[in-house]
């Protein structure tokens, strides 16, 4: 999954970035009248294996280690670079997208391309595969740091908001009897909490509790509303409906007790465990209900001062023992 994502990220960057962002600007160049025998020293000293040949600011050719070896083999001791260089040079423009450079390297198999200015035609840099890799890594690092900063800001939102009391409220309308939309509200809430940078255990507990509450609204009522309040130290949820109400709350809390119709059970719902699951995730839970008047379910999940899960959380305890 991570591989797939970073691959597309690099692809995106290759289209977005320009040749001039990764090229080496400080180019070692030689002149046409430089003797071939000086190349050895130039290549060695600068740790390069090829270099553009320029007259003034303009590119006239390119000379590589390969040309140098050929020269050695030919034993023409006094040749000048201009007689051994490649004249018809493949170049890249500084403002071309990086993807052109990548495909040119792939197609032609050269080790480097001179980079020229599209308007003036002057040599402005050189690009190698190494430059591309280093440039991409630099850019990825910058974006990574920006993302980290953003994530930090999100998770410290309550420290950054200046108020005597801060509370974020999210409201979701649940449609009753609608199994196609069922679970939508809690998955939207879950996404929201993730975006806020809440710790994953808390997010998961809220998501599970709201999912079970949402399913109760879907199965038993004509719809209702989930209101989630996020404040420092706690997340509370109010789930309200004007549905049939619960006749015997104590009974409803017994694991396995359910009044769901058969067709709902056939779908695997109405197993009589919903409220128990909510209880397991919540630090506090209260049900106010009377038949014919609807139900008000109150849930609180403590997040602690440092954003960790509340102490009373059985869910948190059991998931930490899972890791052993």
């Amino acid at each position: 999954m991570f591989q797939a994502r970073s691959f597309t990220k690099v692809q995106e960057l290759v289209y977005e970035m320009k040749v001039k962002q990764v090229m080496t600007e400080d180019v070692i160049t030689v002149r046409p009248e430089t003797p071939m025998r000086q190349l050895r020293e130039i290549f060695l000293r600068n740790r390069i294996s090829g270099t553009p040949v320029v007259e003034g600011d303009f590119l006239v050719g390119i000379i590589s280690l390969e040309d140098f070896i050929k020269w050695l083999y030919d034993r023409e001791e006094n040749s000048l670079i201009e007689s051994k260089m490649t004249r018809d040079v493949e170049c890249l423009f500084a403002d071309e997208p990086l993807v052109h450079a990548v495909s040119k390297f792939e197609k032609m198999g050269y080790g480097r391309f001179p980079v020229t200015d599209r308007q003036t035609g002057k040599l402005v840099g050189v690009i190698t595969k190494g430059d591309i890799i280093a440039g991409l890594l630099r850019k990825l690092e910058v974006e990574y740091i920006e993302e980290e900063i953003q994530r930090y800001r999100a998770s410290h939102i309550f420290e950054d908001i200046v108020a005597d009391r801060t509370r974020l409220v999210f409201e979701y309308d649940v449609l009753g009897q609608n199994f196609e939309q069922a679970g939508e509200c809690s998955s939207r809430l879950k996404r929201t909490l993730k975006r806020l940078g809440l710790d994953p255990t808390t997010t998961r507990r809220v998501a599970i509790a709201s999912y079970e509450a949402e399913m109760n609204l879907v199965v038993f009522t004509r719809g209702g509303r989930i209101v989630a309040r996020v404040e420092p130290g706690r997340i509370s949820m109010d789930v309200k409906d004007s549905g049939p109400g619960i006749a015997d709350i104590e009974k409803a809390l017994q694991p396995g007790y359910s009044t769901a119709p058969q067709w709902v059970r056939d779908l695997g719902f109405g197993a009589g465990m919903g409220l128990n699951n909510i209880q397991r995730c919540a630090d506090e839970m209260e049900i106010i209900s009377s038949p014919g008047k609807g139900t008000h379910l109150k849930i609180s999940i403590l997040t602690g001062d440092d954003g960790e899960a509340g102490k009373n959380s059985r869910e948190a305890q059991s998931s930490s023992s899972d890791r052993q």
Partner: protein
Amino acid sequence: MKLARIVEKLSLAVRTGSENLDTEVTAGYSSDLMSDVIAHARAGSLWITLQIHQNIVAVASMNELAGIVLVNGREPEEETIAKAEAEGLPIMVTQLPNFELAGRLYSLGISGVPA
């Protein structure tokens, strides 16, 4: 064990989420009751079920399960496929019945969620 390896070993047919088979399967859980799965399956579990309706996707992703295997040759409903694709959730199908599949998973070294 990676989900891709299990798919290969047990010849499961992948219906959705083929891009996410690289997940590590930490355990297995078999149930057809949604709340039961929510209560007992832990993140990273492979879920075996007969249910083919779209709500299995919400239950699986809510609990960050590794994937779902539908048994007895059952095929996911169209809406289920659409939702699973949107979530990138792997759904596999097999002709094997539930008990048989669980046994084979066990012999591959995938154990249940401890009570």
